[in-house]
């Protein structure tokens, strides 16, 4: 009964536009007061959960993405991809996916990716005769590659919560991220056939070489980050810092970034991180309330009651993530559900790494669906188009994303192959 009341009050607050963090903090606090806990417990709980070592990677990866955006790396990737795909029909659609794929190695969040790439690409595509919903759809959906491809902020959070190796989770995400790009490419291939008006740009090897030179150094960043982790030079959290330092130096060398831009970049990073971390913290308070009320045990009984088959369990998890992901922020869902789902997964013999990748992909799909589709909002506001139009554009691209979720469920080797190969 208590939990039902709690959930209802959270839903009401969310509907009434109270920020997610406060919609969690308020009812959580009321519960602690009502059950006679001491004053200060709530604050201690949220501060202690924020002060976690693995979470230090969050601000650092946000900083890395912000630095990469300011250093003009997205533009360099765009020029290079354009030079490669100039003569291909619907080339800009593939360019968009390619740029997202390249940038995903430096960005850990879809929102940062959509913000950095949308503004350049969508106007360019519309100018060349691509339909606006299509342009928005391809940019919005390919932005989801960033949080799946390492470095990934949701992966960092999952690894911290589930006590699994961040490096293994990173490695496990590489293949699904490439599959996402491949799936989106197929949708582009199908859709551009129905767009007669699009113009192509020319192709020349000289242009490929010239633009290619400019992306060599930026694309060395993932080598430093992943290579640094897998080669044993630093831990994932340290790799985030070293990656940010590398891009910072690169931006200063390119003169696309000046030292006096740094305060602004830092403030941007602080704001984004704070918004994420407040939700992590508030969800942790709610997690405490759930633990007190034995919700994890009840959920386990419920899920195991439906079936004890690992595949059915993963299907249920994906479904739960897709549904929750449409209304609640992805990070909040991870913080709340990972501690509950992990013991069940271990019980059923589900690999925690496969669970993590599945949860991240299925949650990221929620970024493209109303009412809380953060990527939709970012594109809508950057480009001054209605959210509904962005969503319509994204719809066909949801098909391959859902298909990849199913692939991960039924063929977990897709995920486990690379970590196995690397002996992680």
């Amino acid at each position, binding site marked *: 009964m208590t939990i039902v009341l709690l959930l209802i009050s959270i839903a009401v607050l969310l509907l009434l536009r109270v920020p997610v963090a406060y919609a969690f903090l308020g009812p959580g606090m009321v519960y602690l007061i009502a*059950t*006679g*806990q*001491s004053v*200060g*417990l709530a604050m*201690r*709980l949220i501060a*202690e959960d924020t002060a976690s*070592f*693995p979470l230090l990677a969050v601000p650092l990866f946000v900083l890395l993405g912000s630095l990469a955006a300011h250093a003009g790396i997205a533009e360099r990737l765009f020029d290079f991809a354009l030079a490669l795909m100039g003569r291909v029909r619907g080339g800009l659609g593939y360019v968009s996916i390619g740029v997202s794929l390249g940038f995903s190695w430096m960005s850990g969040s879809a929102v940062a990716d959509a913000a950095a790439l949308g503004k350049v690409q969508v106007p360019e595509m519309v100018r060349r005769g691509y339909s606006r919903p299509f342009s928005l759809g391809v940019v919005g959906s390919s932005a989801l590659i960033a949080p799946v491809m390492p470095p990934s902020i949701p992966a960092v959070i999952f*690894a*911290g919560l589930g*006590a699994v*190796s*961040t*490096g*293994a989770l990173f490695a496990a995400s590489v293949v699904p991220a490439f599959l996402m790009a491949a799936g989106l490419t197929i949708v582009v291939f199908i859709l551009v056939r129905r767009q007669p008006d699009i113009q192509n740009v020319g192709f020349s090897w000289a242009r490929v070489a010239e633009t290619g030179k400019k992306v060599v150094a930026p694309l060395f960043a993932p080598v430093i980050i992943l290579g640094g*982790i*897998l*080669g*044993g*030079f*630093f*831990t*994932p*959290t340290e790799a985030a810092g070293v990656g940010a330092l590398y891009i910072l130096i690169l931006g200063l060398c390119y003169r696309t970034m000046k030292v006096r831009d740094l305060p602004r970049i830092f403030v941007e990073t602080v704001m984004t991180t704070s918004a994420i971390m407040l939700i992590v913290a508030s969800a942790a308070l709610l997690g*405490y309330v759930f*633990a*007190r009320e034995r919700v*994890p045990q009840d959920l386990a009984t419920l899920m195991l009651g439906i079936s004890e088959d690992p595949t059915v369990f993963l299907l249920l998890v994906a479904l739960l993530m897709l549904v929750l992901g449409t209304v609640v922020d992805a990070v909040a869902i991870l913080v709340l559900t990972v*501690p509950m789902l992990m*013991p069940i997964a271990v019980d059923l013999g589900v690999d925690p790494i496969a669970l993590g990748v599945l949860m991240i992909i299925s949650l990221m799909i929620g970024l493209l669906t109303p009412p809380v589709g953060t990527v939709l909002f970012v594109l809508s506001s950057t480009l001054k188009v209605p959210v509904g139009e962005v969503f319509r554009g994204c719809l066909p691209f949801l098909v391959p994303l859902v298909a990849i979720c199913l692939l991960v469920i039924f063929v977990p080797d897709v995920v486990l192959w690379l970590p196995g190969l690397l*002996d*992680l």
Partner: protein
Amino acid sequence: GGSGGEAEGGDGNVELTFAHSYTQDQPPHRCGAQVIKEEAEGADVGLTVEIYDSSQLGGDADRIASVASGDIDIDLQGASALSALHTPIGMVDAAYVFEDGQHLTDFFRSEASDDLVGAFEEASQVNVLGAWSIGARHFTANSPIRTPEDLDGLRMRFPGSPQFLQNAEALGAAATEVAYEELYLALQQGTVDGQENPLTNIDSQNMAEVQDYLSLSGHSLNSNLIVVGPVWDELDAEQQEALQAAIATAEDRMVECVAEAEEELLNEYRSGDRIEIVDDVDVEAFQERTDAWYRENLEGEQLAAFEAIRGSAE
């Protein structure tokens, strides 16, 4: 209300909230917390115990404040973590101070611990009702560690708390900081060369997969102090007695249980080829070194605690 606001009816029924960090199949839960619950409830003096395992109510060190504020009634805490409240109590986790797990439990039952525990309780407002070892800490690395000299040139990961870092220095190890969450990967990739932990942690983190040698140094008896918050003063005499007796029973069970679990694990390691067990660690050489180091470098209450513990050894 001290007991986390749990109902304390007119009939004298008290519900105690018991939190700890271990999973349900680790000895501190099976033989420690569960036994305390069964014994205390079975005494039929109006006590019920609700256990929250696996850090559900917050991380290890984070829960100390909750015990002091009465949001958690009973908790299992390592002495090194409790040294955040009162430094000298950390000496319980110092290197080679106790002979074995039984000695640790006996020390807390005897008068020899009165000064240390009294000073701790005064500083922390938290009561210590007993103690057990969850198993001795051993070294793992990619080379055997038999003597203090074998530690030369190895980057060894120690937990980042002052007591453990002090132990590292006393043992002659170069301590490196890596968060526990990142330890497996750091060992695997060679970011650090080795680490030290009780067998139960070495097993739960699958460290045998990424380390070649387990050197049975047994240099520190990773302790659990059974701490009880302000609810202790709200219990009547009969309830206090029942709880204390329940803890004593659990302490005895833990000594056997830890020994059994360690034996089982070592047999498993010996029969497999994942990790090689080094039996012939020169414990005396380490002991001499740490004893000399502590006597030379400790002072005040820390030295007093050290001497009280050493003095209680037969």
